């Protein structure tokens, strides 16, 4: 049974000049219980805005359209009123830079107990005990609950942020760049922790990041976003070994491999501005395989394999040649 169904999320931001920024353009994906999915893209692609939309945490100058179905129920239907009961109890989030968002004047234990008491999950001593258990679960000794965030190192603060997110035993955890500011060794510890928690607690995880190798290591599936849209979605293995969108392929090629000798590529140009309408494929100006159709027609996400979809006109060409059988072959 699909746990989370996100359908056609669109987010517009009102700009001071009077026009609008179309930050998220029709994003849809599914999430099964216990599944780990990655949401990958560079800055400005709309990945953080997407998960904020799922949580209903967009600012006042945002407009939202679309559906988010949790266990079949559309939680966005009534706006804030229908989302709030589910926040933290069913879906919770680790924000970007969460380790710096801990309240410096409250002890870590208090900050974990807070959401518990707010949502009526536990109270008083029971809550304190539960907080202690949560801290142990994320690898911090329970007695550290009496300490303040500034006494923790960066890695420990991130663990504390994860413990806070798990306070009400949610089914889904949205992690926005959880390891970006951390050292590589601490990053490995945190990622191991996240995978372990997902497996032990049956937690579904959406990992938002720009770091492809991290997603490759942690997630089973990933969606690649560009200019507010998902341009490819599929199993990690397929994305690396059989990418069906030039951006995915180039993104992997731009990430240096530790042992490989291939030249590291950069993608020329910059992402398009989202405050204007874009004609054709948004990636076309920077694409190394664009052809005439790309500048006039917007590609739709189409299936290119089992659980693998991509939005690129090149896939239609491949299909066309495949459809003709071996006619065009060499012999």
């Amino acid at each position: 049974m699909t746990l989370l169904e996100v359908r056609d999320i669109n987010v517009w931001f009102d700009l001071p000049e009077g026009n609008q920024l179309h930050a998220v353009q029709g994003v849809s994906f599914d999430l099964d219980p216990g599944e780990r999915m990655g949401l990958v893209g560079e800055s400005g692609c709309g990945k953080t805005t997407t998960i904020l939309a799922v949580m209903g945490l967009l600012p006042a100058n945002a407009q939202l359209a679309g559906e988010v179905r949790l266990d079949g129920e559309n939680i966005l239907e009534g706006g804030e009123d229908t989302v709030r009961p589910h926040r933290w109890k069913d879906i919770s989030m680790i924000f970007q830079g969460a380790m710096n968002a801990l309240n410096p004047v409250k002890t870590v234990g208090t900050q974990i107990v807070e959401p518990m008491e707010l949502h009526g999950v536990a109270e008083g001593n029971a809550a304190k005990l539960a907080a202690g258990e949560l801290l142990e679960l994320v690898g911090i000794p329970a007695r550290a609950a009496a300490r303040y965030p500034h006494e923790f190192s960066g890695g420990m603060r991130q663990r504390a942020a994860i413990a806070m997110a798990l306070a009400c035993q949610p089914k889904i955890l949205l992690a926005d760049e959880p390891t970006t500011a951390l050292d590589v060794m601490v990053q490995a510890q945190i990622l191991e922790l996240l995978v372990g928690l997902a497996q032990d607690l049956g937690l579904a995880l959406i990992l938002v990041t720009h770091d492809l190798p991290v997603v490759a290591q942690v997630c089973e599936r990933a969606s690649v976003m560009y200019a507010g849209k998902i341009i490819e979605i599929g199993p990690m293995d397929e994305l690396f070994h059989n990418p069906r969108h030039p951006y995915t392929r180039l993104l992997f090629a731009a990430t240096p491999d530790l042992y490989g000798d291939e030249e590291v590529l950069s993608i020329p140009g910059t992402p398009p501005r989202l405050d204007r309408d874009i004609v054709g494929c948004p990636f076309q100006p920077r694409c190394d395989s664009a052809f005439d159709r790309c500048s006039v027609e917007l590609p739709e996400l189409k299936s290119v394999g089992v659980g693998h979809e991509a939005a690129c006109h090149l896939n239609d060409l491949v299909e066309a040649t495949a459809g003709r059988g071996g006619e065009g072959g060499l012999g």
Partner: protein
Amino acid sequence: MSQAIQAVDSENLSLPPPRKKGNWFWDIIKGSTQAKVGLGVILFFTILGIFAPWIEPYSVHQQSGAVFCAPSAKHWLGCDDGGIDMVSLLIQGGRISLIVGFCATFVAMVIGGGVGIVSGYFGGGTDTFLMRITDYFLVIPDVPLMIVLATLFGAKLSIIILVIGVLLWTGTARIIRAEVKSLRERVYVRRATALGSSNSRIIFRHILPQVGPLLIANTVLTIAIAIFDETALSFLGLGDPTAITWGKIIEFGFLRTAVSAGAWWAIVPAGICVALVIMGCYWLGQAIEDALNPRLKVAHLSPRTFQMRPLVGRGSDAL
């Protein structure tokens, strides 16, 4: 290498159009009604003061009406105890009041800005030393000191200006120091040091332009205080006896029994003028300060108030 160069060539597609050379000050004025009103008020009184000799309806040294005559078509705000037209008095008074206000503020800005920048930039012993001096001046109560100094050195306009200026610089110094301290740590300032830039060059090229707007905002607010201080001094009888200022007008009004004569026009309009100028300065100063503080700009945005919009052209269960 060629790929790197090519990369940047096509980036120009997404560059925003070149920003028109706009002055930050006028942008703020244009963007805020509060600023427009404040600037308008200040300009109004300033122009009035500059053109005083030409626009005052009557001379301020000659009696032109009856003693405490009421407002009429001939004298819009009546006359004072000497039969001198109130409107002319107010125009002349505004002139001197504003001059004192501006000059005293200039003194305060130069000292305060200088101390703030030196203290914030060099830190260490210099900072401690200068800040202790600032604390000393902060602690002294303004008005009693002004009274003492004016009594000691005589009540000349220049002394008044100096006294007010010397007491007002401390606020500016503290604010500028805090800003300079934080600017000192910015990467581009540290980079300038690494490049071998001299301290004076860094201060003038990097720190001062950044601190400038804050200094201006602070100056405008200080003008308000300076005018108030001058008015208070004059009202207490410590102002220059030969100069006509709004404070003097109010003082004379009280001294010459305008209250018992029921001649409100000898006191109230001057008070209103002072209040208006002070308000104008506050509005403008606040508007600049708000514009400079980026966080205040987004304070109105908060989560939990997003708007749901129906899917354009589709049903509610469309995919």
